[in-house]
């Protein structure tokens, strides 16, 4: 075991870890925002909403994230030369950068998986509780905010924690589109120092720490959500 390279690469390792965290948090946040309506649409929506929602979940859960990532980044990228004026437009700085593509790809993936989870969660809230809400004069929105969503979330909290851990472990895919998060930094270290074990072990350690943080965070959240009624 030799760790002489650690000092030299410490800044890159830190910025890589930070990039991993940013990618994970943004993907899970935006993904969850999308997952709630996607889940709800499948349970309660008219066909015009529920069918596209189901198709979205099936498509994005049924294809490898790596392919989605590459289709977005290199696929769209191959179209740019044919779009006039795109390089002088104000969105070009974002389109040329790889990070926004990673965010979009991971967000859609999270939305698809968690949308499916939320579908089950909304469905499993006992009908009687919803009827009780309606009987006490709640509007549909009040019903969602006060009963349906909290009860649904309460049931799937542990599953969501698991999904977030899985998403964390998918983030190394971003390195393939030049987003050098912690795994990508590890690759650079391996290629430049010809040391294999040490960088890989270090990075495995970083992932374990991040997973630990997620587990503790969700444990805390679970305790904050009011316990099942009764």
């Amino acid at each position, binding site marked *: 075991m030799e760790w002489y390279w650690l000092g030299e690469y410490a800044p890159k390792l830190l910025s890589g870890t930070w990039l991993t965290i940013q990618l994970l948090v943004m993907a899970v946040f935006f993904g969850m925002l999308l997952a709630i309506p996607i889940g709800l649409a499948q349970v309660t929506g008219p066909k015009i909403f529920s069918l596209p929602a189901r198709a979205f979940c099936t498509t994005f859960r049924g294809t490898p994230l790596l392919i989605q990532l590459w289709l977005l980044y*290199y696929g769209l990228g191959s179209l740019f*030369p044919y779009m006039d004026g795109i390089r002088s437009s104000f969105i070009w700085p974002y389109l040329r950068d790889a990070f926004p593509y990673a965010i979009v790809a991971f967000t859609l993936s999270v939305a698809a998986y968690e949308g499916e989870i939320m579908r089950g969660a909304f469905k499993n809230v006992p009908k009687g509780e919803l009827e009780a809400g309606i009987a006490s004069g709640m509007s549909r929105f009040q019903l969602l905010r006060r009963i349906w969503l909290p009860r649904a979330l309460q049931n799937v909290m542990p599953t969501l924690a698991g999904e977030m851990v899985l998403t964390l472990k998918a983030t190394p895919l971003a390195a393939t589109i030049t987003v050098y998060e912690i795994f990508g930094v590890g690759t650079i270290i391996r290629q430049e120092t010809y040391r294999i074990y040490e960088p890989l072990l270090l990075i495995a350690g970083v992932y374990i720490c991040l997973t630990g943080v997620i587990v503790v965070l969700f444990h805390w959240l679970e305790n904050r959500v009011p316990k099942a009624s009764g």
Partner: protein
Amino acid sequence: MKKLKSVLLGSAASLVLVAGVSQAEIRIGIDPAPYLPFSAESASGQLEGWEIQIADAICAAMNEDCVWVKTAWDGLIPALTSNKIDAIINSMSITEERMKTIDFSNKYYNTPAVIVAPKDSNISADAASTDGMYIGVQVATTHANYVEAHMGSATIKSYQNFDEHNQDLFSGRIDAVVGDSMAMQPFLESTEGQCCEIKGDLHDVAIFGPGVGVGLRKGSDLKAKINAAIDQIRADGTFDRISKPFFNFDIYGG
């Protein structure tokens, strides 16, 4: 394979005998495995390629007869040190490690690192022209080291492989790519590659190394003669005349 080997050894041995008598010929070792466009063996067993022509030109400039001795790549240096051959002309890069065992002539080629950018771009080999630009490189290469060392005011984008940075150069996500001229040539000849052209050669011996030279025994009196011959074919235009059909850049590397 075994049969081939014994034939090669046989021919090498007979050449040694011949050379032992006359000493007039210079025995040049080369691995017959194809390394296009530098050297390859034709169906009839004839060696051909850019490097073969250059070696012939060097021999002609020295007024010496040269014979090729086909030797496996990893046997070239042992063959040289054990006096079975007199020189190695086989795209062997001059490295410190090899200099411990053998000597080298001056370089006769060095595929230069080049900066490639869209045709209408103002980017050049001058570091100032890359200020604020996105430059793509393959990760953990001497090219990446060069950009880090000389083009500090540019944003470096590292790619796992070569096709990926060419793809992003084509799409316009990056403003330029720094890479090996030999490796960039197929891209520049492709349809996508028409977007772009070589904007300049990049030089830094400390980063890229000196290039490819003729491998020689330590203390060999051929060294001065071969260096003079390389200078001569460089000066009289032979080198450029041979190189032109093979490469769309300066293979000598400035």
